[in-house]
């Protein structure tokens, strides 16, 4: 697929991409910065890129040359305007990260906050956090609060002094300080607070790059696939907003794009130590979702993913996640408009809801490979 996929070079590319993406500030509702960063990376590899009303970043690689960007002056496509576009497969990943939203700014320099997103409150005390202006704070816990009673209401962000308190207004959002790192002998595993879900974004970006390169290569070999090009249907790479709090951006993007198939990519909690827990493991390949709390994978989408993985010798795992976990974007993509068959490919992560999730770069690489193969030979749906 990607010429440099496989081997150390491919892993190094992914690692650097993750490092770059996870350093960008972007909590729910404040995705403009990360959207710009992603747009800059994906731009050269797609035909058209735009941001919709909610802030979702949509990058379309059209099927064939005929369905390229709209003619000058024709304006951006409006939601639901599919004329001349041909069928699309929607690949989506939420680009926001969990954040701490300031709920009261007392004059003592202690900011109260609520948590937006899947962050375990156990993970918060003592963390370093920064807001959009780069103001540093640390999370403290009220005196006398026992471990059993830990709750975000009993914590605060200490920004040092009253001057800084005034620089951090109500509604301001702090994110975990983006400290990244490599684990394991010779690397291979990577940690960063924003892996949920910049890891998914990185996978989409690598898929887009690979398709672009293979399409360029495919020109010499025209006619081997769908109408007029190496890619059919077209692909919409959608980087959604507010996915860390609830599947929201994905809902409107899927409604507007009316894809024939949806695939969402997100972190999935993997087994760490202890008896109870997930059956998915880090390092054993992408986790093809069977069901979770709000979503059951249509068997034909799941089978298409499994079949592709088998055919191409890509490792994979089947993921039945426990009933009460909240669903990924898939649960809403699926019911958009008249319905979109939607699959979920999970990136296994240990301590997924902590300040330091750990992913294996090999899993990400295998996911890139799996999705690229699926797009080049999409299932009949």
């Amino acid at each position: 697929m990607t010429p440099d996929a496989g081997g150390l070079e491919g892993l190094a590319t992914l690692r650097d991409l993750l490092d770059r993406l996870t350093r960008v500030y972007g909590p729910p509702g404040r995705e403009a910065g990360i959207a710009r960063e992603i747009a800059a990376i994906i731009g050269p590899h797609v035909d058209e890129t735009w941001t919709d009303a909610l802030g979702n970043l949509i990058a379309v690689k059209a099927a064939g040359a005929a369905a390229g960007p709209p003619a000058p002056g024709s304006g951006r496509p409006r939601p639901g305007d599919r004329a001349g576009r041909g069928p699309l497969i929607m690949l989506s990943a939420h680009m926001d990260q969990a954040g701490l939203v300031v709920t009261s700014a007392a004059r003592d320099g202690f900011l109260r906050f609520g948590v937006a997103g899947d962050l375990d409150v156990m993970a918060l005390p003592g963390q370093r956090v920064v807001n959009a202006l780069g103001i540093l704070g640390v999370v403290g816990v009220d005196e006398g609060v026992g471990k059993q009673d830990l709750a975000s209401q009993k914590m605060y962000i200490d920004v040092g002094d009253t001057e800084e308190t005034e620089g951090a207004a109500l509604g301001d959002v702090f994110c975990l300080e983006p400290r990244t790192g490599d684990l394991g002998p010779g690397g291979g595993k990577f940690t960063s607070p924003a892996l949920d879900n910049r890891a998914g974004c990185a996978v989409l970006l690598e898929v887009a790059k690979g398709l672009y390169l293979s399409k360029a290569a495919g020109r010499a070999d025209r006619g081997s696939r769908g109408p007029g090009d190496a890619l059919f249907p077209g692909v919409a790479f959608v980087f959604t907003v507010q996915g860390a709090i609830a599947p929201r951006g994905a809902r409107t993007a899927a409604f507007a794009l009316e894809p024939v198939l949806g695939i969402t990519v997100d972190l999935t909690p993997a087994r760490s130590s202890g008896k109870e827990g997930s059956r998915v493991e880090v390092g054993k390949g992408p986790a093809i979702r069977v069901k979770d709390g709000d979503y059951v994978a249509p068997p034909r989408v799941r089978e298409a993913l499994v079949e592709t993985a088998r055919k191409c010798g890509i490792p994979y795992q089947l993921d039945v996640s426990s009933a009460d976990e909240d669903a990924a974007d898939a649960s809403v993509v699926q019911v958009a408009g008249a319905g979109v068959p939607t699959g979920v490919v999970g990136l296994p992560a240990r301590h997924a809801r902590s300040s330091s999730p750990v992913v294996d770069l090999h899993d990400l690489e295998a996911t890139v490979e799996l999705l690229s193969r699926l797009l080049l030979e999409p299932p009949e749906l």
Partner: protein
Amino acid sequence: MGISETLAELSRAASVHGHEEGTARLLRRLWGPWLDESRVDTLGNFVGVARGSGREPRARVMVAAHMDCVGFVVSAIEDGGFLRLSGVGRVDRRLLLGQEVEIVARRRLTGVIGSKPPHLTTPEDRKNVPKIAELHVDLGLGESARDLVAVGDPVLYRGDVVALRNGWVSGRYLDDAAGLAAIGLALERLRDVGHEADLVAVGTVGEEAGGCPGAVTAAFAQRPGVAIAVDATFGRSPGQDPTSTYPLGGGPTVGVGPNCHPEVVRLLREAATDAGIAYALEVMPGHTGTDAWVMQTARGGIPTGIVSIPVRYMHTPVETASLDDVKNAGHLLAVAVSRVTWAFVEELSCWNRPPAL
């Protein structure tokens, strides 16, 4: 085919969300003779249309019952070939120990959910109902289970529908075999009675799994002027609250509450009264847990109604219902649908109509 045989077939075909294709195939056979066209849509809903006799523009009525049922999928295959389960829908875990189950793998397999002998339980064990994740299914296969079963395969209650006395039947998944059977009866009757409106008969996917993905997408795609969900409601049995349960043999229920448009309620009640069909009013104060909940807010809003068939012991392998109630629900639906006209639907969607007092 008799109504009890239809229910038995629907019960046999039922499966959890994602695996409704068997029921869709069966509906093609059961409803097909009265439909002008039918198809299975993107998410797997069975959508049949019986065209009305009215001139264009014709009203469109959607009548929906769900094809999926509560059950499980295999979440892991453990050493020794034991299966672990994950529940799909609102499964009652008090029932599960010692239950026979059917695993829908490459072929249908029988398994049992194991339980510790009472001699070996601790006092603590005897007080607790185990979580689904703590149970295991024994196929008698050992390690070779891995060759036959895959993670994600459906696991269902096992057993046929049996006849009790008094025209009552009992078995797995009458919720919502009863609703699907009632729609079939309505279609059959409407062929003779005639109807002005187009009737869109839908078997939906995923009602039990949560979120009703089938109903919301079918309602979006079909743009009905009125939508009626046909589902099971709580049958009365000893020790149950009489205000939220309904006697078997007392006829279908007509839902009232925020999920049911007053004019659709009136349509259903008048149809029942005029046709001499006994019914009960079912007060549904909030979320109804039916397809109507999402159909109501599809697109710009759809006037909805709910017709239910009392089923005792809901979500158990011994759901019990009265055949007469199923027949009467079908009769009621037919009379109501036959009365839907373009004028009726227009009136419902008229924005400046003063509220009825």
